[in-house]
């Protein structure tokens, strides 16, 4: 191959860039929202209302409305917390890790995935807050001088959670917003050109006066790279800290050293499934098929397969070491998981997380959007069950048979979970309608046209 520069006819490259802007902006500029979008928003808001009612009952009555008991003190609440946090991680992975490893296909989905991260973390944060029983005292968890002259207990993994999740939330929002600024500037300029003054002012204020200066881009890119470099260990640390909530204890089934990487792999697994669950219909709805391409979806399917295998490997390792250790309780915990009263949950977990994703070995499956959507729903369910299996089965069968119990959710457990799904859906749909849904500047930068023109006489190397 030669060093020939890519030659485009005059105006052609610009046309290609314009097309990207037009197609992405169309999602927000379409005068009337799509009926399916409105319908989905309606359903989401209804679910959100159920959640709000469940929270109302919870706060006015107490944690007793949940199915939690003395034996199973953590149940749906923490399961949902871990599940949502895990979903959030895929967004960071796509925006940061794939950026560092130069997987340029990420540009079509990173914006939506980052938004998903923020909304998922919001849903996640709700659960531990509500589980405290008195969420209005949540600020007690932050170190502040108080009347009692007491400080938070920093040796507790639950405090680590507070720091990890809030750092994660902050970082995700800043990273997302930073990526948004050039695109918000695009919206600003488009609104100004159309004479929509109010919108232009709002988008203008949000875009901070961005003008695409090369000197600004230089620092922007450095900052972006470093933020990606910081977000990568952060995303590892957040789910590791979540896993520490369990693994620092001595409960069989919780206390195992592989939890941190295993939770991280599971988080990415569930997160990618959620990204696909969200984007497959929306991509169809808003005509973004030429930007979110089939290859991108296929790549995500492969990541699902890989992380699913990692999770499977962790299951196998846990079982092997439970036998290898010779620890009676450890052995019992794992036998109980598979064959105890929650066998059905374990069965759902293994089949959804390990067996079903095996379908992604076949290209035929990876190219069938409907099938992918269905499989991703299964993965979402499977990963929910994974957390449930870890939390509930271990607690329900701890050391003393006298305390053994079974967990049954109440309608308020279910209502709150539905509510967070509604919150997530509502926020995501609003995001899709009002914010640049695809990182236009990044897509443009990753197009072949970005290297158009100019004989590279003085080019180095």
């Amino acid at each position: 191959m030669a060093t020939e520069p890519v030659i485009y006819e005059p105006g052609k490259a610009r046309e290609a860039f314009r097309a990207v802007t037009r197609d992405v902006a169309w999602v927000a500029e379409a005068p009337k929202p799509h009926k399916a979008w409105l319908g989905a928003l309606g359903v989401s808001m209804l679910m959100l209302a159920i959640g709000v009612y469940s929270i109302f009952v919870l706060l006015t009555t107490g944690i007793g409305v949940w199915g939690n008991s003395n034996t199973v003190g953590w149940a749906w609440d923490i399961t949902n917390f871990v599940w949502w946090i895990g979903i959030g991680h895929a967004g960071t992975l796509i925006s940061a890790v794939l950026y560092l490893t130069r997987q340029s296909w990420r540009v079509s989905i990173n914006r939506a995935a980052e938004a998903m991260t923020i909304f998922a973390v919001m849903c996640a944060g709700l659960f531990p807050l509500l589980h405290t029983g008195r969420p209005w005292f949540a600020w007690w968890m932050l170190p502040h001088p108080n009347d009692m002259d007491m400080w938070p207990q920093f040796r507790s993994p639950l405090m680590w959670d507070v720091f990890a999740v809030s750092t994660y939330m902050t970082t995700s929002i800043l990273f997302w917003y930073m990526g948004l600024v050039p695109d918000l500037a695009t919206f600003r300029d488009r609104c100004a050109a159309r004479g929509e003054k109010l919108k232009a002012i709002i988008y203008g204020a949000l875009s901070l006066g961005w003008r695409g200066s090369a000197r600004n881009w230089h620092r922007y890119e450095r900052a972006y790279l470093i933020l990606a470099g910081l977000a990568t260990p952060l995303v590892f640390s957040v789910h590791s800290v979540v896993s520490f909530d369990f693994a620092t204890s001595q409960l069989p089934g919780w206390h195992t050293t592989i939890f941190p990487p295993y939770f991280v792999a599971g988080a990415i697994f569930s997160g990618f499934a959620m990204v696909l669950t969200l984007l497959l219909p929306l991509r169809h709805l808003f005509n973004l098929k030429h930007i979110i391409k089939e290859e991108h979806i296929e790549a995500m399917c492969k990541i699902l397969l890989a992380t699913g295998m990692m999770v499977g490997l962790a299951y196998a390792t846990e079982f092997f070491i439970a036998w290898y250790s010779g620890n009676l309780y450890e052995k019992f915990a794992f036998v109980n998981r598979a064959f105890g009263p929650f066998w059905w949950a374990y069965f759902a977990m293994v089949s959804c997380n390990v067996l079903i994703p095996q379908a992604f070995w076949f290209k035929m499956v990876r190219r069938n959007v409907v099938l992918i959507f269905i499989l991703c729903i299964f993965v979402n369910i499977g990963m929910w069950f994974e957390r449930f299996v870890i939390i509930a089965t271990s607690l329900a069968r701890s050391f003393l048979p006298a305390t053994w119990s079974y967990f049954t959710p109440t309608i308020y457990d279910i209502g709150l979970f539905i509510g967070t799904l509604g919150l997530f859906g509502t926020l995501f749909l609003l995001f899709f309608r009002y914010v640049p849904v695809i990182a236009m500047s990044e897509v443009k930068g990753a197009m072949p046209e970005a290297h158009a023109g100019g004989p590279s006489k003085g080019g180095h190397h």
Partner: protein
Amino acid sequence: MLGDGALYGVLAEYDTPGELIEAARKVRDAGYTEFDCFSPFPVHGIDEAMGIKRTILPLLIFGGGFAGLLGGILLQWWTNAYNWPWNIAGKPEWSIPANVPIAFETTILLSVLTAFFGMWMLNKLPQVWHPFFRLERFGRVTDDAFLLGIEARDRRFDSVATTQLLKDAGAIAVENCHLDPDPASRTMPGWITAFIVSSTAFALIPFAIAAKARNSHSSEPHIHVFPDMDFQPKYKADAASDLFPDGRANRGQLAETVARGSLNADDTFYRGIEGGKWTEGFPKQLEISEQLVRRGQIRYNIYCAPCHGYDGRGSGPVPQRVAAGGGAWDARNLVQAGGPVVKMPNGQLFNTISNGYNTMMGYAHQIPPADRWAIVLYTRALQRSQNAAVDDVPQEELGRMPMPQMQTPAAPAGAGSAAPAAPTGSAPAAPATPAPAPAAGSAAQPENK
């Protein structure tokens, strides 16, 4: 062409990123410094063409991260190991392994904040206003335009030559950009300033209220935003109630009834009376033993000694404190030979403990009857020991006693060895009369007041 203010600069448009890079290189080679390129995405290779120096941002971020690390460690050390040390699960107060996660998070947090805010600061953003925004062409820079702008303040700037240079570099269009003739348009509108100031002030209100609350007193009950457990559906003692005709929440004892286990029919045991008189002995329920004496000693030392003193001479810590304050008050001397307490029957002594005497309050509600009898027994032992003679000591114990006083009565007795248990000594300590203390173990103090 907009406006007629001073010339700000020229703006050239290029067709492709590659041409923009070439143009930038030419402009730089021509010696211009006050120029910039504008593009919808970061153009790869333009930094080098324009001669942009690497930003110092990474260094700032490293500093931020280091501060975060240090801050995270110090926070945890200061709060958990220094200011409020607290034993959790037997872990060391300063548990470094357990502090790693939070120190890590604070490191990341401060690095991220530095990266984000540092980047905008170095880029001098937000800056909503810029002369180029006046050009319609510039509105497409966020869409598909590749622009190069040279400012008029560059010392090489020359309206004609610069335009020509840009055109030679392949520009598809070059236009001049003038500043707005109205200088007011280059300053921030007053309403924005007003909004920022007022919203900042508004945001500070909660902090001001909190600060005021920290530094003032109020007799008003505080506002219960969330009632929590402040108000519980229950009655407190002596509260009012609409439920009962007498309007009281307290329900007294029903007439002619005795609560289970509260009959206390045994006069001797509960009241110290036997046959209508104070009993001289002890109730039959109690077995008089050394164990009971010891029990009595413990109870006595808890309840009686503060006033009566460990030796029973009435000069416990409370009288001492009175004396220290310049007053003079002693509790009753319980052990004075021939004194009223020594003569008192056991029953009366019991009654005094139970119901009090003069300024002494009753202890019936604090000390169960059996313990009160134990105190009576111990008081008797104390009286015996405080007034004992050598003959009282059993023969076999005699040899074990250190009795320097007996051999050398002139020596300052007990100066070194005797325990200073009873500093009754406003009276000059006379040479000690030999007074061994067998049971109670307190030292000799001969002077009776």
